[in-house]
C-alpha cells in the first residue's frame, strides 16, 4: 500500500501539510495538516509498504510501545482510506 500520487508535501505557517495537486489545479481547500509522526508515515508511504514495515519504522524512530503504535497506525490508515488517499 502507498499514498496515492497527486500530493505536494510542504510547510504553511510552520505546519507540515499535504496539498492535493491535480493535472492543472492545486487544491488549497483540501490541504491536509500532518503532525510530525503523521508526516513521518506519509513519507514512508510514498513507496509501496505494509503495516508491519510502518510499525517497525515507528518503533525504531519513536519511544512508544507496540500496542499504542499499532493502534495509531491503524487509525492513520483508516483516515487515509476514508479520504481515499490510499492505494492498496
Amino acid at each position, binding site marked *: 500500500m502507498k499514498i496515492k500520487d497527486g500530493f505536494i508535501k510542504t510547510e*504553511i505557517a510552520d505546519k507540515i501539510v499535504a496539498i492535493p495537486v491535480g493535472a492543472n489545479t492545486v487544491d488549497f481547500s483540501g490541504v*491536509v495538516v500532518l503532525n510530525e509522526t503523521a508526516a513521518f508515515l506519509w513519507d514512508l508511504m510514498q513507496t509501496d509498504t505494509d503495516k508491519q514495515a510502518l510499525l517497525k519504522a515507528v518503533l525504531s524512530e519513536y519511544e512508544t510501545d507496540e500496542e499504542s503504535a499499532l493502534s495509531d497506525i491503524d487509525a492513520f490508515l483508516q483516515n487515509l482510506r476514508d479520504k481515499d488517499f490510499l492505494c492498496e
Partner: protein
Amino acid sequence: MRINKKYEVLPFSMQEIGPLIKDFISKEKQVAITVTGNSMCPFLKDKRDKAVLSPITKKPKKDDVVLYLRDNGTYVLHRIFKVKENEYIMLGDAQVYLEKGITDKHIIAVATAFERKGKQLNCNNFLYLCHIKLWRFLYPFRLLKTKSVNFLKRIFKK
C-alpha cells in the same frame, strides 16, 4: 507518540498561503482556495465558499474577482470596481470605500469559478451576472447608508 487521529483540514489565511499561490500561478496552475474573511460578503463567506484562481491571460476587466498583493504585503481577493488607464479601482462586495492604486503588477490571479454554499458557479452563470449587476446598482445606497450611520455616530458621540 501521537499520530493525527483525524485529518485536519484548515482553511489557511490568505497571508499564509499567498506566496505558495503566487508560486503555483506562475507555473500556470489553477489554484482552488477556501475563502477566508468576509470582505466579499454576501457573495463569498468566510470558510464556507471557495474560489478557483487562474493565471492572468488577458487584461482583467470590471467585475472580475482578482487576487492581488498590496504594496504592504497583504494578499487580497476583491472585485474590480473600475478599470482606469493605469490602475484598477478595487472594492470588496462587503465594502463601501474604494481602493485605488492597484496596477497590473499587483494582480496575481483572476477567479474563474466559485463554489458557493456547496454549488459550483461559473463566472458566466446568469444568476451570478445578475448578482453583480444588482450589487453594483446598490452600491450608492450602501455607501449612503454607511456614511449616514457614521455621521449619526459622530453626532451622538458629542
